[in-house]
């Protein structure tokens, strides 16, 4: 019950409290400015005395049954000021901070009371106090008057709470029955052992029996109580079960709906596939043999392609970018390839028809990392954001002129079609709208490394953190502070390690194009379920557990910033500006093999048979893991920045501004 409350409610009643009202602002000021002083307490005590008589009055005022929305607010810190005043311990140092907190609470409370009260005297106070934030209040209970506003219905529970308590924990409830029992037991014992005593034997056994009966009655009462309290609990649990069952039902129906939708979509895809086949067969003869088989099953198409193209040669060059290509990725040898370039654009290419589909607008800066899986593309950019794109929404390219492209250019799986915003003429680049389906914001610097799976993505940025994102909700669920983890894991020398690496960068990057910023903090990362591997500017590889956010392993070895990495169950392969690629055995944590190159390694990918890597030269290196032989792919006219291969097709992007497709 707060003094201030009554103050605010007083105006309709005779105004005998102008005194306290004026003191309260003073009180507030003193508390705020000087902390705790005697003036405060005496002023409060004086006010309290005046208010003491009004307490019951006001309490009765509050007892109107109404719902109180404050309950839903998790932070309803309301504590009565009179508590402080009446407490004999008010002067106790322990309580001083509490009293201050309580005063602050009261101010907040007053602010809340404002809408319900007509007083203007409180408004000025609450206006100034509205910014007050409570820190570290230990006791935060709604004031009793608030609570008492609630309706208190007739208590028709069969068993009072205390009786339930006593029934469950009889030893803790009351000391008397146990002492009774003890004395009764003693009496019983005496009765039993001294059965031979003749005097008053019958009398004693009678009282004994009566005592026994009483005891048994008490016990049965107790059991009854226990039974009913247990029954209550069972009821409660039943209700909870019902709630959960209902929840499950709604979710199941939701799932059924989604299933139905999916079925529908699959059917549409089938029909579209059928129509594509039909149309393609009407197309040019040259394409038709390959095209018809290409519609459904890509594997057949691949084998045909292999026969068509000679191994180790570039069978297609995709031109269009105006500047160095930074990174490429594609989802299928006959699917879509996405490339990002220093000209500021991100282009999508159709690999079946080998033509550009358009550009993906959205990022305000260069895209440094991307991952394309089936229809979803994730791109991380220097603007600190990561965007999600849905590429299945790209419509087939309508080119009335060229004969080689049929009305539908088929890519990976069936598509529904929002329109391209522009005509596909030779000069203009169509902008692919409606593709960006999400934006992951949070990083404070350039995003330089990215990896995703079906539900999660992990990104590394120059703000020295790595973030884990939930792709469905597009929220960051975990942030890994690399500096903190590395410092806590290692000694102080590790921090100097960061600095020395930076200086190392400067001269080792001579040969490399200016694509490489000397400070790509997280050069590469990959994760699989909860295991994350990161390669950072200090040349160390770190393994993290995404469940705990801790780095549990560090693989030192590289003497320059890591630029690329990939791992599978057995090996981790990492490339660095120190001109080496290291192959690590994950079981032992030691280097299995080191490949040396003539210039910093910019990109790599491996599978069971080979490691394909690019460095700052125009050649692409293929290292055969079984024969330990190197071979090169030549064709680019500028340093190759990114390589990516799937099955038998390799895509490479280079500073000469073209993407080349190679048959492997």
């Amino acid at each position, binding site marked *: *019950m707060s003094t201030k409350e009554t103050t605010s409610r007083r105006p309709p009643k005779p105004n005998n409290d102008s005194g306290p009202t004026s003191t309260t602002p003073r009180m507030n000021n003193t508390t705020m400015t000087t902390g705790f002083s005697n003036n405060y307490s005496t002023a409060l*005590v004086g006010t309290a*005395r005046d208010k*003491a008589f009004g*307490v*019951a009055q006001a*309490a009765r005022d509050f*007892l109107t049954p109404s719902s109180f929305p404050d*309950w839903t607010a998790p932070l309803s810190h309301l504590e*009565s000021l*009179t*508590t402080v005043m*009446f*407490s*004999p*311990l008010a002067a106790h140092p322990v309580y001083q901070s509490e009293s201050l907190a309580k005063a602050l609470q009261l101010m907040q409370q007053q602010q809340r009371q404002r809408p319900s009260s007509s007083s203007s005297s409180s408004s000025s106070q609450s206006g100034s106090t509205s910014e007050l934030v409570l820190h570290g209040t*230990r*006791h*935060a*209970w*709604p*004031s*009793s*008057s608030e*609570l*008492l506003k*609630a*309706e*208190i*219905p*007739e*208590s*028709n*529970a069969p068993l*009072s*709470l*205390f*009786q*339930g*308590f*006593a029934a*469950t*924990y*009889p*030893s*803790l*409830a*009351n*000391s*008397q*029955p146990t002492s009774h029992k003890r004395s009764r037991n003693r009496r019983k014992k005496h009765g039993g052992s001294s059965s031979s005593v003749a005097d008053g034997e019958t009398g004693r056994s009678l009282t004994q029996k009566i005592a026994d009966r009483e005891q048994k009655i*008490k016990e049965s*009462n*107790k059991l009854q109580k226990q039974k009913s*309290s247990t029954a*209550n*609990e069972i009821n*409660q*649990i039943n209700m*909870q079960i019902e709630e959960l069952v209902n929840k499950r039902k709604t979710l199941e129906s939701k799932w059924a709906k989604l299933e139905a939708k999916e079925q529908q979509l699959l059917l549409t895809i089938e029909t579209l596939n059928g129509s594509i086949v039909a149309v393609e067969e009407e197309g040019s003869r040259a394409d038709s043999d390959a095209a018809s088989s290409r519609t459904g099953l890509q594997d057949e198409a691949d084998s045909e392609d292999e026969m068509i193209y000679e191994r180790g040669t570039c069978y297609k060059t995709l031109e269009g970018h105006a500047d160095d290509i930074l990174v490429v990725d594609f989802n299928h040898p006959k699917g879509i390839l996405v490339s990002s370039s220093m000209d500021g654009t991100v282009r999508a290419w159709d690999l079946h028809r080998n033509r550009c589909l358009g550009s993906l607008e959205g990022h305000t800066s260069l895209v440094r990392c991307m991952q394309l899986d089936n229809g979803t593309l994730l791109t991380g950019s220097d603007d600190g954001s990561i965007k999600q794109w849905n590429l299945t929404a790209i419509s087939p390219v309508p080119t009335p002129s060229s004969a080689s492209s049929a009305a539908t250019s088929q890519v990976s799986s069936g598509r529904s079609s929002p329109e391209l915003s522009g005509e596909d003429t030779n000069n203009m680049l169509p902008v692919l709208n409606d593709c960006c389906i999400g934006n992951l914001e949070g990083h404070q610097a350039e995003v330089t490394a990215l990896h995703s799976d079906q539900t999660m993505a992990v990104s590394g940025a120059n703000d020295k953190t790595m973030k884990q994102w939930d792709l469905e909700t597009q929220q960051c669920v975990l942030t890994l502070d690399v500096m903190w983890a590395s410092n806590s894991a290692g000694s102080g020398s590790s921090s100097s390690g960061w600095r020395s690496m930076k200086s190392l960068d400067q001269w080792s990057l001579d040969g490399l194009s200016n694509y490489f910023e000397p400070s790509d903090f997280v050069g590469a990362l990959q994760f699989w379920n909860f295991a994350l591997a990161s390669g950072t500017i200090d040349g160390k590889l770190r393994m993290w557990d995404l469940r705990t956010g801790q780095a549990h392993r560090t693989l030192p070895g590289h003497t320059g910033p890591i630029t690329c990495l990939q791992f599978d169950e057995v090996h981790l392969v990492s490339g660095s500006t120190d001109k080496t690629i290291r192959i690590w055995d994950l079981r032992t944590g030691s280097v299995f093999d080191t490949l040396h190159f003539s210039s910093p390694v910019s990109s790599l990918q491996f599978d069971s048979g080979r490691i394909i890597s690019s460095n700052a030269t125009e050649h692409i290196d293929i290292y055969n893991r079984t024969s330990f032989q190197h071979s090169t792919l030549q064709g680019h006219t500028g340093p190759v920045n990114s390589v990516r291969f799937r099955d038998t097709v390799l895509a490479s992007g280079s500073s000469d501004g073209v993407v080349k497709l190679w048959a492997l």
Partner: protein
Amino acid sequence: MAETVPMVEEAEKPLTSAEIEVLRKQFEREGEFVTIQTKFNYAWGLIKSKNMEEIALGITLLTEIYRDSPERRRECLYFLALGHYKLANYSDARQFNQQLLKYEPNNAQAKELNKLIEEKVSRGSSL
């Protein structure tokens, strides 16, 4: 022992820490769907203690019960009054107790508590 509500002295007899531990374990074990009885048991154990923190926690729990279970509110009134009384929040204690007496004017324990609160208040105001 067949009282619906304990006497005020009962609240001054603390439980051993082992006993409180038992109550607390049961409370925590039930997790999100803790039953009112368990919550009350633990809260009552806390209120009986001499430690201010524990009493405060007990009051918090009781307040929750009060808020969430209208049918139990009347009982909670008494315990809330007791708790606040032990913490020397006499105005709160008195408010709760008054309310209780409104509903049950013949409740011996409530009357007893009322007397004690008035005593303390009058002693305090003479400061």
